[in-house]
């Protein structure tokens, strides 16, 4: 990058690096006329951007993998007649602690609700049976 023997070593290096900084969002004015240390922060921001993109692609891959997994019952060559695929994931994956906690709470509440309904059904059935027995007596 830096050629000390060149008559314009710094200028050459600046022009060599210029397209890269333009590509990561720095304006020409910022590059040439603003605080020289801005370049550090643009590089750091670019690193974060790359990491975020990588995570997004990973998440996308997870959704695809999940969707294919849910389809496998019907993709099976010897699948029984009437086999249905599992439905697509109901909601987006929680990507932070709060969302994960919320999702867990929702799941637990739904589970408790199912349990309550089951118990209510059971109670209703028993009551019905007792009533029938009492009527017969």
């Amino acid at each position, binding site marked *: 990058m*830096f050629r000390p023997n060149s008559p314009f070593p710094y*200028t050459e*290096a*600046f022009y060599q690096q210029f397209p890269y900084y333009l590509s990561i969002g720095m304006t020409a004015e910022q*590059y*040439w006329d603003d605080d*020289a*240390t801005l370049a550090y*922060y643009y*590089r750091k921001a670019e690193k974060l951007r790359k990491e975020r993109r990588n995570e997004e692609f990973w998440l996308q891959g997870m959704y695809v993998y999940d969707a294919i997994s849910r389809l496998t019952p019907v993709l099976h060559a010897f699948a029984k007649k009437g086999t249905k695929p599992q439905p697509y994931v109901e909601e987006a994956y929680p990507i932070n602690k709060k969302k994960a906690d919320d999702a867990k709470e929702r799941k637990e509440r739904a589970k408790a609700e199912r349990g309550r309904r089951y118990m209510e059904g059971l109670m209703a059935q028993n009551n019905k049976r007792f009533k029938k027995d009492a009527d017969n007596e």
Partner: protein
Amino acid sequence: MAKTIKQAKQLKFTYKEKEYTLEFTRRTVAEMEKKGFIAQEVEAKPMTTLPALFEGAFLAHHRFEKKDVIEEIFSHMTNKEDLIGKLAEMYNEPIMALVEEPEDNEGNVDWTASF
């Protein structure tokens, strides 16, 4: 944890009630090279390069300051030995910012010796 905030190195002073900020940008460094300034000569020929370096540091914020005024300010500058070091550091900053990693200072512990 000691973290260093990177910011352009500037030299500030007031002369005849006017505030001056000396700084180098990539454009002004390129301009100086175009005019024939050679950074490598700073150490070897400080007496000839220092005035030119000083004058170049005005380009970023005081481009139209007259040469006579700059020379007058330069003649009044004290501690010229330190000045050359600081100006050389400032001159190198636009290039150093392109090669140094931002993480270099993060998490490093600053230390001083008492002996």
